[in-house]
């Protein structure tokens, strides 16, 4: 009986608003973060960092961004990869074309802001167009982004196909030289991504439990009623586009900088948008933690499958068979999840937690 809330009484409104009202949750989270920061970089191999943790953090950021827009504010978007593309290219160009003092976190924030503004532009039609009709605007963003960066090679610094992102972009205030650490190592990239993602997730969480978050959800649930009770609907939608695209932009930049280490257009094709949409659906629309659950599942699912193909069946099946079966299972998983629990993994987890709270005496 480690998991309880019995005996914890709420005595003030501030306490009631805490992120982790249950002490166990708080300690578990703290422990988890300590583990992620101080243990993981030392025990995880390059493979785990480069091929699992870093991509999950990068994808998670973009998924969180989409969730803010689609899950929280109810504006369906298929342009996620397009916005990621903007973010990644802007970051690269800021780093490339600025003086010495520019550093990656600052460039990420700047690029995110510009991407957010672009998001507002493509979000403008949402004032008049609603529901599925809005898909067309985000699709336009998706294809426009690809076309734009393909057609104007200036943004790729006139390179062929891809640019390898140089290691010196990672150095922060000369830390690397001063302390003789490799700032471009996977450990450093992991910690940088983890820091950024944690900060962004915390920001999103705060935003969601404040007035802005309630405005987002009000607009999602019923925008006429929202406007009648005095919520600035248009401003709220635009803000949602801005914040969402900011996150997607940063996610895209992390995807290239921390994960792939190269910048190219192909990275951001339409499929990526779908992939991130699945992450959000499976994780749970409207849940911040859910964005990460979904990311982990969607990212790891095919890998787990091919891993199983390798080790359990010792390569008895063709990779094609394994991959196709994975796809079929994946489709069934999405449909089954929607039938059983439209709230996604986050809702499943919440139900489980609820049961756990009262365990072993459910009544």
């Amino acid at each position, binding site marked *: 009986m480690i998991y309880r809330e019995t005996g914890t009484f709420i005595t003030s409104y501030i306490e009631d608003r805490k992120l982790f009202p249950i002490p166990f949750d708080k300690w578990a989270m703290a422990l988890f973060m300590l583990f992620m920061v101080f243990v993981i970089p030392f025990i995880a191999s390059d493979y785990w960092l480069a091929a699992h943790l870093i*991509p999950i953090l990068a994808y998670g950021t973009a998924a969180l961004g989409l969730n803010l827009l689609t899950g929280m504010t109810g504006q369906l978007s298929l342009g996620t990869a397009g916005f990621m593309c903007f973010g990644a290219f802007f970051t690269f160009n800021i780093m490339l074309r600025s003086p010495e003092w520019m550093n990656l976190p600052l460039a990420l924030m700047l690029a995110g802001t510009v991407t957010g503004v672009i998001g507002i532009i493509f979000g403008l039609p949402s004032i008049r167009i609603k529901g599925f009709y809005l898909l067309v605007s985000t699709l336009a963003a998706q294809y426009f982004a690809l076309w734009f960066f393909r057609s104007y090679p200036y943004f790729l610094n006139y390179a*062929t*196909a891809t640019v390898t992102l140089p290691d010196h972009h990672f150095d922060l205030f000369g830390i690397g030289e001063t302390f003789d650490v490799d700032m471009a190592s996977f450990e450093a990239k992991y910690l940088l991504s983890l820091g950024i993602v944690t900060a962004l997730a915390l920001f999103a969480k705060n935003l969601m439990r404040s007035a802005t978050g309630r405005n987002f959800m009000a607009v999602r649930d019923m925008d006429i009623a929202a406007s009648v009770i005095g919520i600035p609907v248009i401003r709220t939608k635009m803000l949602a586009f801005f914040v969402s695209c900011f996150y997607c932009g940063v996610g895209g930049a992390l995807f290239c900088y921390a994960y792939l280490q190269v910048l*190219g257009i*192909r990275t951001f094709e339409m*499929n990526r948008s779908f992939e991130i949409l699945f992450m959000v659906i499976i994780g749970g629309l409207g849940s911040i933690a859910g964005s990460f659950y979904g990311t982990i599942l969607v990212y790891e699912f095919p890998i787990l499958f091919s891993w199983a193909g390798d080790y*359990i069946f010792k*390569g008895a099946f063709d*990779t094609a068979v394994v991959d196709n079966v994975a796809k079929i299972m994946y489709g069934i998983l999405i449909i089954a999840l929607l039938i059983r629990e439209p709230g996604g993994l986050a809702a499943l987890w919440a139900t489980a937690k609820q049961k756990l709270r009262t365990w072993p005496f459910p009544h």
Partner: protein
Amino acid sequence: MKTKIWITGIAMATAMAVTAPPVMAEGEVYIPMPVYRVGPYATGGTGYFGGIIDYYTLMNMTEGGVGGMKIIWNECETNYNDQKGVECYHRQKEFQGKPALFFDPLSVGISTSLVAQGRKDKIAIIAVNHGRTEGQRGDVFPYYFMPGINTYDEHSIITAYIGQLEGGMENLAGKKITLLFHGSTYGREAVEFTHMLCEKHNCSSEAIEVPHPGNEQTSQWLKIRRSKPDYVVLRGWGVMNPVAMQTGVRMGFPISNLIGNIWSNDDGDVKPAGSSANGYQAITTHPTGRVASVIDEIVEKLYDQGMGDLEDKSRIGSNYWNLGVMAGVIHLEAVRVAQARFGPDVNSAQVRWGFENLNLDTARLTELGANGLVPEIKTNCMDHVGGHQAKFMRWVYAETKWEVASDWIDGDVELSQAIIDAKAENAVANEGITPRDCNDPAQRDDFEV
């Protein structure tokens, strides 16, 4: 619930421990196989990796592997997807305790994504017949190899062939050549060079983009119909190729004047176009069909015994499969070159040196049974491409096969060197690369760059 998670966790950990790889036997070398057998580009993947696997298997059977070391490999499905490819790379860097000797994903996206990483890990990234053209400069990109031809060779050879068709390069003057390219950085890469070539040979050129994926080309071919070029050079990829042939023919363009590039020359590109493709010509580094004795040997010792990697036997001798066999020959030759210097148990950095010192001349190719399939390839520190020559094939619809249409034609290496150098300089400036000095024998021969 919590308990469940713990149990699952423990179970998984146990499973991992139980299935943990046994230590590999001595006398084996490991080569990763980042295949793609599903998705839109699966034809390429199954053919190419099928060819490689068949050649490796043959070598294991007949020669006990390479230099006395048995070749082992494992597959990882990339879907031709950059992100999955990178995951595969990290996963396959090591297998059963043996490090990978090199990594050949047959994908521009994956290979270019790994150029820097490969250098860090001292693992050579191989991109047969494609990739970042500046990668030719081995002093700047020591761990990146593109054996065969590069984009610029490809288009200078095509121009030379058009010259042959017109009865001499001087007859190119006043002709009009249109480049119909896939709307990607891959496609765009040839635009500038096509204009340069036409400038040199006094022809006029224009470039028309087909947006990805290329299954709607009405407006492009309407443009072509208006501008009436003498030749259209097709720089396509996947479904864009058959659609270009069909749409072109439907718009009344003579198919014999449509010349395909190196990624527009597969059976899978022409067969869907049906009779429209009859007489279509395309460049190739590795003629299709059973053109070399090594292929006959594979058929005899593998396929006739019910082995072999291709499910569909009719694809033996097809373009991608032959390319795979060609790649297999190059791979193992590099390993052998390295073994000759460093002994049989080579590491990846030593194999890199092997790739840099290939010398596949006709004599050696004949010895390997690959003459007629593989072009002559001689690499060095400054040239990681090495081949720079290709042939042409013509599709015969009635017999559903390609016929060889030309002899080996050399690329215009001088014209392309300037662009390649400029791009390499750009990479040096922006990617934080310190090039080595290829004229310094010490630096040149140091395998661990």
